[in-house]
């Protein structure tokens, strides 16, 4: 298991290869989140962030067969098309890998203490939390 909260970029291919080495692993599902149109700065709560992600991963491990897992989330200044987040889950079969990957991402959206501030043409503004993200996390309950 690897959880990293970092300013720097990541190599998704390398991270996926790193959790694919056990010959009992038959599936790796991964998600990469990208910055859309607007440059932004991501703030986080050092310490709690890593802790919150670890709790989400533990919850996923309790629900599905998770043989290995990597979650990387960036902070700091990011520009359009930059990678923000990687969730990669290795499992015996695709069903568990897909489900655990989506679950971790949905929970990360509502539980991990990150805040986006967009630098728009009209000035900087904090992104507001979306009800649709709460709904996405709710459906796993």
């Amino acid at each position, binding site marked *: 298991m690897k959880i990293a909260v970092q300013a720097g970029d990541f190599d998704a291919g390398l991270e996926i290869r790193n959790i694919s080495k056990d010959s009992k692993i038959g599936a790796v599902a991964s998600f990469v989140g990208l910055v859309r149109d607007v440059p932004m700065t991501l703030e986080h*709560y050092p310490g709690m962030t890593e802790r919150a992600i670890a709790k989400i991963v533990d919850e996923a491990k309790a629900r599905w067969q998770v043989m290995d897992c990597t979650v990387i*989330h960036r902070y700091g200044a990011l520009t359009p098309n930059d990678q923000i987040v990687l969730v990669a889950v290795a499992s015996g079969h695709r069903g568990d890998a897909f489900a655990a990957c989506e679950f971790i*991402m949905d929970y990360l959206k*509502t539980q991990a*203490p990150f805040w986006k501030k967009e630098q728009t043409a009209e000035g900087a503004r*904090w992104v*507001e939390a*979306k009800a649709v*993200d709460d709904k996405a996390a709710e459906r796993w309950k």
Partner: protein
Amino acid sequence: MKVKVLYFASIREKLGRDTEELDLPAGVATVAALRNHLRARGGNYENAFSEKALLRSAINQDMAQPAAAIKPGDEVAFFPPVTGG
């Protein structure tokens, strides 16, 4: 009791600070009570902790509900709903 309070994102900006040590009066022993206590300071605090402000909180780096109890030495954080991912 003494606690460390942390502020993030828009709350931090409204207050112009990211942390402070507070010595809470008796009776301020939950997250909700601390929020009211901070609002009562007036000025920027009244704005940041207004009744209608959508806030989340954590005690010792775990998400905490308004009714959660605060103990001496705790690290209590206030922040807006999270927007990562």
